């Protein structure tokens, strides 16, 4: 291991992280409540001019290929789905985190956001296969946020990728998470969790971020949601959408079968769907970002 630094230095960096906007924060709270309505979501979007403009740009982007322009927020939200609106709201206020090149993981600018979007789509698809009722859009939001800790931890890992991989290959660390802890005293899941607490994210999202690599340790109440994101993360990495050197360097918690029913055929269909949905959403979100039409 090349260095050991105190986790308090990492934690200090969390204090400097951007805050969520009040509209993003309220959207996250409301959509985590199973009783919420689409009208409540629209009401929040309408009070935020930047969010309104961006939602309309995305819905009218070429990727969706609408024949006539949508100018009403209610129609835009029902067309895009609240999950994408929440994703846009998060991205507006935290883009400096999502767009960071994760140098510590030898990933490029945009890799984290693309990985998160893939995980979001995959987690929601997996959540739809759950035998019990699950908030599928919350699985999407959990996917967007699950790796947020990497944006802060990355710079402390600069130059370590090769030695971390050797450590894992030799069996000195069982996965990337353990190697991060050995070097920095804290791993990206825990850093993300600290940020989630600072942002006062709803409890199920805090659990997703903290336990996405070890879902069996999540509270029973949220465990199936955490398993959905755990598998969504693996599906994204299998599809080639990782965040650099840590791609596939984790273990699968095989007890997912206690919470989610998934056959080989369903998984194959999911992989296909994620690839198609990702291409469409990526194009529309990028269009929206550039200010294109």
């Amino acid at each position, binding site marked *: 291991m090349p260095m050991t630094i105190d986790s308090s230095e990492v934690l200090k960096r969390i204090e400097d992280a951007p805050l969520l906007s009040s509209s993003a924060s309220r959207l996250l709270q409301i959509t985590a409540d199973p009783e919420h309505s689409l009208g409540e979501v629209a009401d929040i979007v309408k009070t935020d001019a930047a969010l309104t403009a961006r939602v309309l740009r995305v819905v009218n982007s070429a990727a969706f290929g609408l024949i006539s322009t949508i100018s009403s927020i209610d129609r835009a939200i029902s067309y895009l789905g609240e999950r994408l609106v929440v994703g846009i709201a998060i991205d507006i206020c935290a883009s400096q985190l999502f767009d960071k090149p994760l140098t510590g993981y030898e*990933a490029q600018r945009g890799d984290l956001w693309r990985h998160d979007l893939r995980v979001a789509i995959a987690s929601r698809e997996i959540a739809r296969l759950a035998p019990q009722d699950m908030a599928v859009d919350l699985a999407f939001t959990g996917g967007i946020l699950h790796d947020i800790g990497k944006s802060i931890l990355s710079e402390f890992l600069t130059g370590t990728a*090769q030695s971390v991989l050797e450590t894992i290959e030799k069996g000195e660390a069982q996965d990337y998470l353990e190697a991060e802890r050995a070097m920095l005293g804290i791993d990206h899941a825990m850093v993300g969790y600290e940020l989630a607490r600072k942002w006062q994210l709803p409890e199920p999202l805090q659990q997703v971020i903290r336990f996405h690599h070890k879902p069996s340790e999540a509270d029973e109440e949220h465990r199936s949601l955490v398993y959905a994101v755990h598998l969504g993360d*693996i599906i994204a990495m299998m599809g*080639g959408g*990782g965040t650099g050197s840590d*791609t596939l360097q984790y273990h699968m918690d095989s007890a997912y079968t206690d919470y989610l029913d998934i056959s080989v*055929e369903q998984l194959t269909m999911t992989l296909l769907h994620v690839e198609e949905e990702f291409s469409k959403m990526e194009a529309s979100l990028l269009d929206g970002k550039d200010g294109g039409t």
Partner: protein
Amino acid sequence: MSNLILGVGDFGASNSPGDIVKTFALGSCVAVILLDPGTRSVGMVHVALPDSSINRDKAKERPGYFADTGIPMLLKQMSSMGCNVRKLTVKLAGGAQIMDPNNTFNIGKRNILAVKKLLWQHGMGPVAEDIGANYSRTVSVSTNTGEVVLSSPGRPPWKI
């Protein structure tokens, strides 16, 4: 001289001197690389799933997505470029996975088996491969040298 970049489910070939045929970040996907030293042609298909029977429409729209439709299409293209398909050199890369004791997520392994079966049906087999394990791979092949170079974040590049 240009780069031929192949996305998931794409196939393509080049015999232009100096061209690089490349595909990024193979996770459980498999790149089938076909080399014809005689005409200095390089072909590649980025296979994502083993069997097209799961979605025939997708197979029509993007045959390279599946092993059973992608490999024949690539062979056809290389044949039309004047390659002797009986003399092609085959190399494979990809098919990574995270171990799942339930076997459901072992798509990488299923992709490799499907690709090898298809090749075998055409009387072909790989002379070199870097498959399985748990790392993602980027593959680039130069038409000048026919060298297959693999890379993965955090690892120095290597050849197969």
